[in-house]
């Protein structure tokens, strides 16, 4: 069947895919034995995970002293990684919830994987506040619950406590949203499978989905509500993470611009990570028809926009530190640019402000490998941004007598690698057991912009 393309819009799914094609394309990889490429990726990432695990066991066993921190610099890789990973998660929620509310239907083919990414990123992020504690076995003390220790309560003034609430809320809502969105696809999976434990499992996980009008109606109301709930989280979580710094008195941290700056940075880095992942995934899993160049192009535009905002934030920071006439503030800024860690600041500026400017060009936006390179640069840049804010501000603060240098140890580097290992291992497993594309949602946009029966104009 040939279809006429709309003059005004571009189709969201390329090629003449039928609903059956979609199911086949998405589900078949789950039935086949993994490809060699998958084994390679999984092997690498699980090796990284194992490395990280050994590092974590070592530091919990021996002490945080295995890190390069000292009496002046209390946080470095740990909280940098935490903020980095929380930021990564933001794109997923933005794609799945905000773009859903704005009826951006192109998101349908990427929201599943982007949301999975969110979950895995938040898992990676949550690891760091836990292991950065001197006594992680007492981490449950940050939970306010009636306890036999007095009862001793928590400090509601501490941004770290807000973090705990923010992150746990974020994870719960994201996980629920993602799972609810999976229900129809889980039912499809179950329906395709022959009798066996997998069928039973998927059947059970689909919570008795029967595909009836009623079920769909409930499902869609639920999905809409959850999208509404998740939307403010995109802004609140990173706002609260930024409070860790903004509410302190340290020059370089103490800044009212931080909440919007951090939220934009988070979305920026999140989209970069989605691009990094999906450009690979669409190729490897042969999903080019679903995750099209148009998707990449659209995400590049968001990335470019957030890059500009981040750049503006950097400039504002410079301006306010100069305008404040606060000697500590001014020094802190100049120290980033000209102090011992200047290469990291300038790398950060290059990666986050200058490199994304290439995305103004359509040719670049529509060439996946170029976008991929830029996305990697942004990932590096955004990690450095957090590191520069945290560590470079700390290493030279008020009293020059306390100034110190920071050098990471292999334990810290290994733990960072391990967190990537965790992230990718989860992602690889996800690709093997769940549909990476929301089939039911994609099916609803199959005929978008195509002149076929039942298609909206």
């Amino acid at each position, binding site marked *: 069947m040939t279809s006429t393309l709309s003059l005004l819009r571009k189709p969201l799914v390329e090629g003449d895919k039928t609903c059956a094609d979609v199911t086949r394309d998405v589900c078949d990889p789950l039935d086949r034995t993994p490809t060699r490429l998958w084994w390679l990726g999984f092997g690498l990432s699980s090796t990284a995970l194992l490395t990280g695990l050994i590092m974590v066991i070592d530091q919990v066993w021996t002490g945080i002293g295995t890190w390069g921190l000292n009496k002046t610099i209390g946080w470095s890789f740990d909280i940098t990684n935490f903020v980095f990973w929380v930021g990564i998660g933001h794109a997923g929620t933005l794609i799945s919830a905000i773009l859903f509310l704005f009826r951006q239907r192109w998101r349908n083919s990427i929201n599943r994987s982007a949301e999975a990414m969110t979950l895995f990123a938040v898992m990676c992020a949550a690891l760091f506040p836990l292991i950065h504690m001197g006594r992680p076995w007492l981490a449950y003390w940050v939970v306010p619950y009636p306890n036999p220790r007095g009862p001793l309560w928590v400090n509601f003034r501490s941004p770290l406590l807000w973090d705990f609430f923010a992150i746990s809320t974020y994870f719960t809502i994201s996980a629920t949203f993602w799972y609810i969105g999976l229900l129809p696809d889980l039912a499809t999976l179950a329906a395709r499978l022959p009798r066996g434990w997998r069928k039973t499992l998927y059947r059970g996980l689909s919570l008795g989905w029967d595909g009836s009008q009623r079920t769909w109606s409930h499902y869609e109301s639920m999905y809409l509500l959850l999208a509404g709930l998740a939307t403010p989280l995109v802004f609140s979580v990173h706002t609260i993470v930024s409070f860790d710094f903004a509410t302190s*008195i340290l020059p370089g941290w103490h800044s009212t611009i931080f909440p919007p700056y951090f939220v934009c940075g988070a979305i920026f880095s999140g989209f970069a990570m989605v691009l990094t992942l999906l450009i690979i995934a669409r190729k490897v899993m042969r999903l080019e028809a679903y995750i099209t160049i148009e998707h990449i192009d659209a995400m590049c535009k968001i990335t470019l926009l957030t890059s500009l905002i981040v750049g503006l934030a950097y400039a504002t920071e410079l301006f306010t530190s100069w305008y404040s006439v606060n000697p500590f503030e001014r020094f802190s800024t100049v120290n980033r640019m000209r102090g011992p860690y200047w290469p990291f600041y300038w790398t950060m500026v290059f990666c986050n402000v200058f490199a994304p400017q290439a995305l103004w060009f359509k040719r670049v936006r529509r060439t996946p490998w170029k976008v991929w390179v830029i996305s990697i640069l942004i990932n590096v840049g955004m990690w450095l941004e957090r590191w520069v804010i945290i560590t470079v501000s700390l290493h030279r603060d008020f*009293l020059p007598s306390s100034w110190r240098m920071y050098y990471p140890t292999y334990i810290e580097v290994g733990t960072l690698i391990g967190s990537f290992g965790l992230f990718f291992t989860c992602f690889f497993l996800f690709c093997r057991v769940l549909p990476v594309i929301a089939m039911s949602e994609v099916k609803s946009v199959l005929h978008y912009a195509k002149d076929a029966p039942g298609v909206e104009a």
Partner: protein
Amino acid sequence: MPLVSETGEKIMEDDAAKAGADDKADGLTRRDFLEFLGASFAALSMAGCKLRTPVEKILPYVRQPEDAVAGKALWFASTCGGCSSACGVLVKSRDGRPIKLEGNPDHPLSRGGLCARGQATILDLYDSERLRQPLIGGGEASWATVDAEVRRRLRSAKSVRILGRTSTSPSLDAAIERMARRYPSLRRVVYDPISSWAIAEAHRRTHGRAVVPHYRFDEARAIVGFDADFLGAWLFPVEFIRGWSKGRRPDQPQGGMSWHAQFEPRLSVTGANADLRAGLLPSQEFSAVAALGRLVASHTGWTGPLPAVEGACGVDQGTLERTAGALSKAGRNALVVSGSNDPAVQILVNWINAMLGAYGRTIDIERPSRQAQGDDSAVSELLAQMGRGAVDVLIVLDANPVYDLGRAEEFKEGLKKVGLSVALADRLDETASLCRIAAPLSHSLEAFGDSRPVSGVYSLQQPTIAPLFDSRPALEAVLRWSGDRSSGHDFIKGFWRRKVYPHVHGAHGFEAFWRDSLQKGVVLADEPRMPAAHFSARAVSSLKPARKPAAAGAFELAAYASVALADGRQANNPWLQELSDPVTRASWGNYVCLAPEDAKRMGVEEGRVLRLSDGARSAELPAYVQLGQTPGVAAVAFGYGRTGAGKVAANYPTVKLFPIEKDLLAGANIRPFVASGAVTLAATDRTSPLSKVQIYDFETDPLLGQKRNIVQETTESAYRLDPHSGNPPPKKEEELWPRHKYPGHKWGMAIDLNSCSGCSACVIACQVENNVPVVGKAEVRKGRDMSWIRIDRYYSGAPGQPQASPQVAFQPMLCQHCDNAPCETVCPVLATVHSSEGLNMQVYNRCVGTRYCENNCPYKVRRFNWFDYAHQDLVQNLALNPDVTVRQRGVMEKCNFCVQRIYSGKFQAREDDRVLKDGDITPACAQSCPAQAIVFGDMNDPDSRVAKVARRSRSYRVLAELGVGPSVFYQTKVRNDSEKA
């Protein structure tokens, strides 16, 4: 449950326990029985859960010692055995073990101060590497065998020598004299590892009396030091700091400030405090003193002979004239001191002091010091005799000549020819291990003893613990070997009855006097003064300096005694090893200090390992680039590189940490190089980073060049005109929230930056009091030192800016106990909280270790337990203060104003049924401060000393502009510029 008593004191009282006790008075009813039965079942099942609680049996005393109450500290007055200064101490004893030394405020010389080394002697007592039993030829032996052997050899000996460091003990002197009567061939040779022989020798030649005078810095209005680090480690620093600080208080109505000039090759802690400082080469010291003397001579109208000026003196004429003017103006109240061990220099110093009339005022030779009696010529004689094989028995009495005698090689050779060598030593050190008999010496806290540091001042030393090992005090060993079976106690008592008691006025009955003396620790005896001695100028005219300039390309060696280790006898003391030098801020091992110019010329950066050589021998040490050092000088500290002191001295990490440090460069012994006086330096291709606690040295930042107003300074002339000079009134900041209420006490501290000399006694005091762990060289390098109080040191100027002599400021920095503490708001688990008395408290067992508080502390005074700084050394653990928790790893800690002392002060007041009064509570740092720069008390009491000091015009708070409301009030530093050119 806190209650308020009649006296208004908030105290803790468990009235619930009292109520429970009343109930138990009744007999056991059936109902109770069943209740107990049920309860015991519950307890049994609970017991199964409590796997972590170790079961241990506690045994009561069989015979309860008198006054011993569990948990209550007893204090004994005694004498510090750290060095021959013999400061008065109070020994704090808990449950039968001494745990802390504090200065005895009644002691006329130390007046309550105690230096870092003195305080650290408590850990020497609990050093597990002490010698535990006598050894003969390396095999274990009993004291009986040793006594028999020594006495047998003594009887047949034709020549007996006792070699020891200065001992101020008059009864030991008497015992040795008695021994000499029994063995007439016995001669005693005394040396000081850091010799002051030249001072005594110079006085022999100028005043006919070989004495080291009693210097009275408290009387001095103008002080000039030539390489005499009297605020650091020269002679008797505690008394000197105390005296010097008396002249550093500009607020005192009478007299104003004293003026202090220092001429020295390296930047010492004394030079750092000087109003005028100029560098010179060690070889120029003679000419500089001579030039100054000639100027003073012209001022004072001296008509006697003048010394010849030998070569350039290194100091410009204007500076010398300024100095001479100040000295002449001060007249009798002037004091010139020199650290040189060249009699020629010391004779010139005597000459200047005599011209000024300082003898009798700032210099006392009628009641001289007894604290340094070393006689270098006697040592030379001994070495010659030993070399000839003419010594039959050599007893090394509490000394380590193989390490700390300049001619150690000669000594070692001679030792082989000695018939019987006996070492009385606290450990199998470099000397004891070479002697045939090594006998363990008791620690000064284990034995009776006495001391006469200055004529007329007698102090007693009493044991506060039974000897930990099979050791003996030197006095008893000497008594045994001379056939006297009396105990040290009896001998000292007898000696005091005969020699001290008759000179003490107002004592009624010896027993009462003895008890009283033991209780007070110190007695002033009205000993007859030595007859007045007059300066004889004959020696002045024909002097030649001993020191020659170094050959081209070589460096003049300035070997110095460091504040932490001095002569190195305490090198195995981890507290002292980790005590950072006040000036260099480095610890664990010594290094070669180089002037920036020399370092640049050689292309050497800090940490580069240099090969130091004097032609005959060489050593490897890392370089340290020291601002203010005279070019052409290589300065190296004594006391390091000990091979026989133990593991700590060898720089092994105290805890085996991961990754294990590969570089174990533990410093080198510089003493053998001193004789040649000049060394060559060659850079190697290796580096060994120094373990420094401060790596940036300026208040001015390196990028914008802005000076931060952390140490406020002014000059005396400006201060006279405006008492607020240098201390602009802080801007009034509006506060968003209501202030904390402090209804009872509000603890605060005041630190006078003008009298703080940077001596670091407070650092060790805090470490002892609060069980602050030692972390080792590798950790200090990483910036993980644990000190709760540190002494920041700032240089004037900016990095890279050439400065011949930077101005230096010291600033003790500790938790500021902010009213709006930034650390308190950020802790998620409320592990750091504000007390109603203004204390910022750290709850160790609540801390989960997020380190957020550390990040948010603008003073960076919080310290994190990166590892379990496990106290693995069980003997050493005996020194722990049971009032203070030993922190687990992963926990933040910091200064708490010695909260345990605050509480014990309150309890004591309540026990005495009185209101807590100012001075009842003194934190460890304030107690030990020889300069009394730290005042602690209740800010709510307008009459308390701290509140008065805080109201002074010089008072300011560091970083108060942040609005954190610190409770520590610093006093602006005032430099005396009254002798402007």
